[in-house]
């Protein structure tokens, strides 16, 4: 049934349909509508789940680590500072191989205090062993959340479903909410491969010596690699039931493109329109939407980007002292490909600033006009700022 709902509500509907058993969260803007909606579902009986109110995001994830260890399906949602506070337990979750699913609403980190969208919060957690999926619209958010549970439970790794603050979390769009029966066919009950069991007591997460630690890390890496293959299968199964298909990366009009723009999140939708306009003007331009960030789909990206003359990556994030994070990853993916195209890294839309079609067209024109990028990070739309005032 189609309904006009917020991106946040799309997440909540998917969590309800996934028959999650335990939800634990601490409210933070702009994630709050997700857990608000879920708390209503829990209180009115729509969803038979235990909703844990905790005193911090650290505790929110700690509680889920306990719950998930007991072999039940779990969910949390957070943003920005909240995710940063979870950092220690993000590592723990993946190394404990717990299939926890989280909705992460991209929000800038403070100070300056800013509640608007910015990907640095989730990208800064790229090494924590969580699968990361960046969504473009409400429908993709709902579908990806359902897939996230399946994927997580198959590879025993946690999944972060990432969506832009406000542009997605608070934007109302028509979203097809599937029937429970169809979701049940897609997503079977969680069948844990290990769990806390009083009949068979054991301890998880105990001391590991150098003799075994490395193999355990390799096992996590293997789980990540398995997820890459599995996602394609999941999409197939999902399309078979629901008739919708998403992808780890989605090339748009890239086949003969000389310049390919690379985007993630809601900027992609704006960019789709630009590509169509530019194609009408005869420009040989394409778009690559990157949805799956961890594991990073290196082969697929190489296949799409290597033939292009130039690549322009739009990063709504920044790694200080380096460059945009998607650009770094793409450069790394291409560097061993002989004759690979130069990668232009553009920083735009940080802290919720609009990335309009004009902004994107400016990026495109600048890429056309330069043979090589003048630096690794090109900041778009920076204003003149006065010198720092003297301390009074």
């Amino acid at each position, binding site marked *: 049934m189609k309904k006009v709902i917020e991106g946040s509500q799309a997440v909540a509907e998917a969590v309800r349909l996934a028959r999650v058993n335990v939800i634990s969260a601490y409210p933070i803007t702009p994630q709050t509508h997700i857990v608000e909606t879920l708390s209503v579902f829990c209180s009115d009986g729509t969803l038979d789940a235990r909703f844990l109110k905790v005193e911090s995001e650290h505790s929110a994830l700690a509680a889920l680590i306990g719950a998930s260890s007991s072999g039940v399906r779990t969910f949390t949602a957070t943003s920005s500072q909240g995710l940063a506070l979870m950092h220690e337990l993000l590592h723990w979750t993946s*190394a*404990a191989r717990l299939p926890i699913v989280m909705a992460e609403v991209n929000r800038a980190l403070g100070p300056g205090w800013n509640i608007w969208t910015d990907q640095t919060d989730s990208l800064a957690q790229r090494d924590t062993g969580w699968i990361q999926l960046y969504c473009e619209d409400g429908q993709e958010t709902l579908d990806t959340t359902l897939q996230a549970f399946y994927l997580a439970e198959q*590879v*025993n790794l946690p999944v972060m479903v990432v969506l832009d603050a406000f542009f997605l979390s608070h934007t109302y769009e028509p979203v097809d909410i599937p029937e429970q029966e169809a979701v049940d066919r897609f997503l079977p009950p969680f069948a844990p491969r290990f769990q806390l069991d009083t009949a068979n007591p054991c*301890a998880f997460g*105990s001391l590991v010596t150098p003799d075994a630690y490395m193999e355990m890390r390799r096992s996590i890496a*293997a789980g990540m690699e398995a997820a890459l293959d599995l996602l394609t299968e999941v999409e197939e199964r999902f399309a078979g039931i629901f008739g919708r298909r998403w992808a780890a990366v989605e090339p748009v009009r890239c086949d003969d493109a000389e310049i390919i723009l690379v985007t993630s999140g809601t900027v992609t939708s704006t960019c789709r329109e630009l590509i169509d306009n530019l194609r009408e003007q005869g420009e040989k331009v394409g778009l690559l939407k990157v949805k799956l960030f961890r594991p990073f789909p290196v082969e697929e990206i190489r296949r799409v980007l290597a033939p292009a003359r130039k690549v322009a990556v739009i990063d709504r994030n920044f790694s200080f002292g380096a460059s945009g994070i998607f650009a770094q990853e793409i450069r790394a993916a291409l560097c061993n490909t002989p004759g690979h195209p130069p990668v232009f890294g553009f920083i735009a839309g940080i802290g919720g600033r609009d990335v309009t079609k004009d902004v994107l067209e400016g990026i495109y024109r600048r890429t056309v006009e330069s043979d090589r990028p003048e630096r690794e990070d090109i900041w778009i739309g920076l204003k003149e700022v006065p010198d720092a005032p003297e301390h009074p």
Partner: protein
Amino acid sequence: MAKKTDTAPVSLFIPRSYLTTEGNKTGSWRFLRPCYEEKTAPCGAACPAAEDIGKIEMLATQGLFKDAWETILRENPFPGVCGRVCFHPCEDACNRGSFDEAIAIHVLERFLANTARRGAFKPEMERLARKEKKIAVIGAGPAGLSAAYFLALLGYRADVFEAADEAGGVLRWGIPLYRLPLPILQEEIRRIEELGVRIQTGRTLSERDVHALAGEYDALFIACGHGRPAELGVPGEKSEEVQDGLSFLRQVREGTVSVCSGRAAVIGGGNAAIDVARSVIRLGGEAMIIYRRRRRDMPAFGEEIAMALDEGVELRELLAPVSIKSSDGGLAVEVRPMKVAGTDADGRAHVEPEGKQTEEIRIDRLFTAVGERAGEAWYEPTETGDGILRLSHCVMERKTGGLFVYGGDLTNATKSVAHAVASGKEGSMALDTLFAEGIEAVRPRLAACRVGQDGSLSMEIYMGGPRRNRSPHVVTYDEINAAYFQFAPRLRQPRLLREERVRTFEEVNLRISANLAIREAERCFNCGLCNQCDNCYLFCPDLAVKKDSGPLGRHIDYDYCKGCGVCAVECPRNALILEEEAYEEGD
């Protein structure tokens, strides 16, 4: 590389152990050891009668009113009296005062006494085995009655001799009924008699009679009080219209004065002056208090002063009487304005005359209330000499005629009911120790019974009760984890309306409900006491706080306690300590 899920399960190599971790005694890592240790609350240390107030309020919080009342009786035979007339130094010491407002301890004490009275509670008090020795107590005021009470608890026969025809002393004859109703006093005296204490009233004894008793009894406790009024030392104070306040109050209590019309002045700043003025108002007169210092320097209770002013008493500060003259059937009091010039040794303002001008105040009668002294010289102990042992609240004197202990107002620096109780308690302990272990043992034995470092004497400690083990450390406000407490206003004592107060001697303070009492008791920090709040149990990251059926309800499992100290830090009331472990070199 990646394994297909339909062919083989995804690699899953996780740390998992089937061995118990019980063998890993993490307690060996500890260098700080948390211990449950109950400490001394500042209220109890400040109470002259050493009431275990933190414990009393904790029991009240739990609705255990009889236990709470008995905990008072352990240290003080007069909860009903002291809940009404005590100057409650406990409240000045209350740590809650640094947070919002002190606990209304005296209101709760009065509530517990009222509840015991209404429920006709019979106290179940520990009493030591009967002993052969017997003690005569001279004077049935609060000190003498307390001495008899504690002597009876310690197993002695105590006979009380009282000159008046009813027991109670200043409680019976000096304090007006609107502060202390007669049945309250009578019941507390009756409870002392029920312990076997015999009170002989109407027995005025001469010095010779007392010495005769000294031969008959093993010891005498002399507590005849201060019955003789001090003089102003100004011309005219012998005139007929001038009366000492204490004898006036006594006439009112005897019922021989029932009207006091006209305009009266009281000279003095203590509670007796206030009592006289408020009694005059109730008997139909107008009353003025003349005081040589300022209101803030008055020794009377602040609330009593406020109520007196509310009832229409006029207060003239910084005026000293110069002379008193008869004038037109009334009196003309000449007073001189005073000014504050520095501070006296006792901390009060030092005053001296301001200029040469005087003022004449015309009144119908004058009462003096500037203190009292002993009625007879032989009431008081010898100043110095062999066989004299000066204790904090009484003086023991062994002379050829017998063994004398002088107590109450005769020996107390502060003349209060609570100090009188302290005196009777100290006298009884001193005699008991003397009889059992000899004179040398008295001082050290008493020193060991102090509440806190230098607080008052506790009968609970003396008799070896369960609370004897509290550490003498007095808990300070910064040792309370105030994060666990919420601001809550102090209980407001409900009172008769002013219009009701000024025409009757009905008790001014009204009863409070059990709900209000429990709410007020719940404000108490219970400084240094474990009230089983379970914070230590909840916070311990090693599950090393174990519940048990012992008196504390819990203990620490030192096999696993790593000594992180979170239990001690999160204890709201400082009932835990952290001690350094005494490891041997090489451990």
